[in-house]
């Protein structure tokens, strides 16, 4: 489940981004049900993600979330902000902290997406994701590439030139 602060009425203008812009801020809750659902959807049935005894035998504190569930969930705030998911042309991360998920209750994955860089000639923006559970960073160097639309004034200049 995801909750986001009430968005600004102004929709995100991808043609006018600046480095440092915060694109999304969201809290995603992860519980055992979410891990089971992700195991089914992804085909990753590693029992450390649903069986405490197996997780503990493997040296873990208990069941932990799939790294890929954390990665897949962490980008969804940005996806909501940009609308069209196909604008994400790259996404990468390191897994820096495991996410134990208790048998009852839930944990909160807090994610903030910020414009880290803009490449005008490539027409892309790098968006950096900060993902934290209980104050601990769980994803390192998590970044997505967004394909940006042409800037409005460039598109208008092209149209005028072609007229």
């Amino acid at each position, binding site marked *: *489940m995801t909750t986001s602060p009430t968005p600004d009425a102004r929709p995100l203008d991808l043609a006018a981004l600046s480095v440092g812009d915060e694109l999304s801020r969201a809290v995603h809750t992860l519980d055992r049900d979410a891990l089971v659902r992700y195991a089914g959807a992804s085909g990753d049935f*590693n*029992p450390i993600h649903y069986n405490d005894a197996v*997780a503990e035998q493997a040296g873990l504190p208990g069941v932990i979330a799939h790294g890929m569930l954390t990665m897949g969930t962490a980008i969804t705030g940005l996806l909501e902000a940009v609308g069209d998911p*196909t604008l994400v*042309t790259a996404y*990468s991360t390191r897994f820096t902290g495991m996410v134990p998920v208790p048998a009852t209750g839930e944990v909160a994955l807090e994610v903030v997406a910020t414009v880290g860089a803009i490449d005008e000639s490539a027409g892309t923006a790098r968006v950096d994701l900060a993902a934290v559970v209980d104050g601990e960073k769980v994803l390192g160097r998590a970044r997505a590439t967004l394909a940006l639309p042409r800037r409005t004034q460039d598109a208008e200049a092209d149209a005028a030139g072609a007229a």
Partner: protein
Amino acid sequence: MIGGTASVGPRADPTSGDTVTTSPDPAFAGRTYPAGPVHTVSAAKIVEFARATGAPSPLHTDPEAARAAGHADVVAPPTLLVSLAQATEALYVEDRAAGIDFARVVHGEESFSLHLPVVAGDRLVPTLSFESVRAAGGHAMVTTRVDLADEDGAEVAAVRSMLVVRGD
């Protein structure tokens, strides 16, 4: 993580009885496997995966919305291809000569390069390569890449995965 039981310690190969080593073979760096079988992207899996990760766009779950946006069918969220990539990486697990004990494996990094939207019904050909096998601090870091192409050979996406194999 790649599927498989999380058994602890060295395991006997079920066929030969030999003990599986815990050291990935550095000679595997640079190796490319033959292309895997064609995989058809599933609409049902796209919907499940979008729901499981909380991906909000109707393009993932509503074929009419996806078609209105110019796609043939529902569109995959950005990390969906991990399932196909890991199934292809499993070829490595079954290649015993490579020497990986999956009880010692921790997922280190993952990256997706998405050249084209991935849409239900797409037929993708996966090819696995080893980008590197390196050692640091008593552990081994194995980076694989799965390239996904359409049946005409056009690149659709690449998924890179770095696994840390903990040393003794």
